[in-house]
């Protein structure tokens, strides 16, 4: 048995602010059909898809056991189906494990999230916290990330100007990505003048409400030729859960990200991400997280995030050429969107934003307030 897992196909709908015209079931179907078409894979329980990993969130779907809402659409009836209720990048890691263990040859991954369905994203993420203390003091992912932003900006010399640059670049890159949310280009002044949501986070520092769905077909090394001539290999995966209580953590230490990287780098044989990785995609839901996460994965020096931005670090290392999460991907799928960009780049299908000769990509995803849980996936050509 080979020790690599291939992504054989990927299909997505466009990231949009409000897919008012479709249920998420329809969005998923629009992803599934091209995958079946591209690969010719069937639901034969010997040779085809007999296990499906889905990713969705109960609160955003307003449905407990949210996967029940679309198991019919993704073809999951009468076979295995498991749901990831964390960033979907963990679903890809799980699918990888299913294949590496020999349990499955082929796994279908399907993820969706319609953030527009809820009237308030903050009220929904408020429910991630305990009812006794954190919820009553109004914690949600926005204001907990504002804690992190405050602490990190102090630590790494990151200014409001730096953050404006990060946002401007995100929107410019996204303009070259046909599946990116059409959030529109902005100027530094626009960003610097945008209102505070939770000081120091301004409106334009925060990823906008987005609806999206995506699917991928994964398969074992031996059978990859049945489905594609241009596979992308998963060669590394790691994740780590940090402490739950915000007060228990050093919010800027990237503790769980460093642990996730150790695992993924070790598996993929990466010594130095600066030289060993061609495309880097970070889940920067909030602008300050781009330099902070760059420190965490070893791209920028510890506490050097401000200087890293000034010296053009993001562009030099091909970070977030997709536009990043900052331009708009829904919660739960930020990391999958990063893997999608890695997949497209490694297949040489990125058009105007293509990195020539890209051989290895890093995709990062995070779940929870202030990057509590971190996931890193390494993709190779």
């Amino acid at each position: 048995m080979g020790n690599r897992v291939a992504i054989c196909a990927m299909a997505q709908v466009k990231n949009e602010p409000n897919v008012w015209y479709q249920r998420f079931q329809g969005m998923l179907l629009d992803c599934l059909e091209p995958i079946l078409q591209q690969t010719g894979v069937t639901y034969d329980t010997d040779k085809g898809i007999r296990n499906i990993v889905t990713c969705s969130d109960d609160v955003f779907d307003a449905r407990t056991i949210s996967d029940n809402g679309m198991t019919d659409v993704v073809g999951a009836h009468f076979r295995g189906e498991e749901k990831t209720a964390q960033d979907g990048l963990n679903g890809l890691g799980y699918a990888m494990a299913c294949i590496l263990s020999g349990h499955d040859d082929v796994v279908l991954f399907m993820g969706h999230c319609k953030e527009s369905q809820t009237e308030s994203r903050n009220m929904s993420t408020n429910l991630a916290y305990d009812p006794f203390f954190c919820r009553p003091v109004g914690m949600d992912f926005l204001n907990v990330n504002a804690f992190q932003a405050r602490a990190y900006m102090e630590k790494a010399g990151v200014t409001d100007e730096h953050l404006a640059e990060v946002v401007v670049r995100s929107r410019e890159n996204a303009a070259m990505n046909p599946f990116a949310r059409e959030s529109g280009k902005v100027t530094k002044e626009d960003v610097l003048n945008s209102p505070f949501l939770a000081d120091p986070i301004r409106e334009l520092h925060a990823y906008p409400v987005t609806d999206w769905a995506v699917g991928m077909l994964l398969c074992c090394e031996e059978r990859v030729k049945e489905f594609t001539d241009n596979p992308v290999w998963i060669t590394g995966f790691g994740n780590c859960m940090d402490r739950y209580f915000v007060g228990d953590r050093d919010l800027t230490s990237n503790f769980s990200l460093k642990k996730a990287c150790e695992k993924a780098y070790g598996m993929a044989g990466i010594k130095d991400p600066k030289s060993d990785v061609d495309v880097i995609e970070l889940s920067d839901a909030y602008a300050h997280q781009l330099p902070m996460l760059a420190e965490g994965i070893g791209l920028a020096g510890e506490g050097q995030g401000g200087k890293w931005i000034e010296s053009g670090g993001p562009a030099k290392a091909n970070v977030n050429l997709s536009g990043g999460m900052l331009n708009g991907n829904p919660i739960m799928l930020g990391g999958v969107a990063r893997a999608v960009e890695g997949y497209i780049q490694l297949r040489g299908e990125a058009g105007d934003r293509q990195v020539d000769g890209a051989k290895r990509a890093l995709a990062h995803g995070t779940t929870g307030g202030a990057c509590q849980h971190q996931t890193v996936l390494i993709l190779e050509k």
Partner: protein
Amino acid sequence: MSEKFGVKVEDIFNTMEERFRPEGAEGVDASFGYDISGRGRWKLTVKDGSMKIEQTDDLGGCAAVIQADADTFVGVNIGKVDGTAAFTSGKLSVDGDVGAFGTTAKLFKRFTPPKKELTVGEYVLDMFGTLEARFQTGAAEGLDITIGYDIGGEEGGQWTARIKDGKCTVTEELVPSPSLTMIMKAKDWVELMLGKVDAVNLLTTGRAKVEGDMNLATKLGELFAKYTAPGEEEEEEQELLVLKKIISVNQKFATGPVMGKYLNGLKEKKILANKCRECGRMQVPPREVCALCRIRCDEFVEVGPKGNVRLLDTAYYASPDPLTGETRETPYGLIYILLDGCSGQEVFAHFLRDDQLDRIEMGWNEKKGTIVRPVWAEERTGKVADIKYFEIDE
């Protein structure tokens, strides 16, 4: 028997072997006698780390003989009576070597009485028997009231609690027109007192009735301490709290083209199914795909509007309508209808007219159930409630 602790003298002796601790018998080589007045005599022999107990009148050769009445003996053994106090007060005496008798304390594990489940009748008697004792004087200031309890069924009875001048007197009768009367069956009363069912449930399902001053009903919890069954040790009160929260985040749900077409059909008094072009089965309400054939379902067919009932269930606890937040009146009938044009399991769920619950026959296999037809709302906006309910087609 009827020792006041609910444990028989025999229970103590019969469980000695299983409670015997060989490690406590080390170095003990003696016999001990038990003379329990009115119940009999027992002889315990301990030797080489083993024991023997026998009921016998011959207590010869015992190092010591204990004498006590049954209640004292049982009480000491189950830890309800202090042994030293019983000894000094003379309720318990020892003939012979008192010191040797002391060694028996280490021979056995403590006897724990098995939990006894009371019958409904026993519970009822105990609940009213303890009502005066559970009265909370502090909460009754200025009250001059009578509370009637009309507890039905064979194991029930009638009681009145008169509360006046900060005192509560319970009599086994129902006085004329009490301030408040509670009427329910003995079984329900017991479940209510034990906290297995709540009062609102009993009232809404008609299992309990309250007549008279309803405000008083809400104060009963303050007037009487919570009932605890006999033998259940009162646990020390801990600082436990339960917080009540309503979790509410407004949502909006897009229908998409499939559900949208169906809901729009309702506006025109049409019930649309979608038909799988591969296997031919009908789905109502329509779905994006046929999950069996794994293909999109895009052929729409009008079905019904009449159909026959396959299943009826009567709902006594209604979930609120997710779109309006309103709770339906109960009981109501939810029916599975096989609409004309559908077959097999292609059933459709809706409400049944309230007054026809007991007139429905269910169908199965080839047998048809009662034929029903939809009753449409005057104003239809593209939602499930555009059909108010189904009624018998007559």
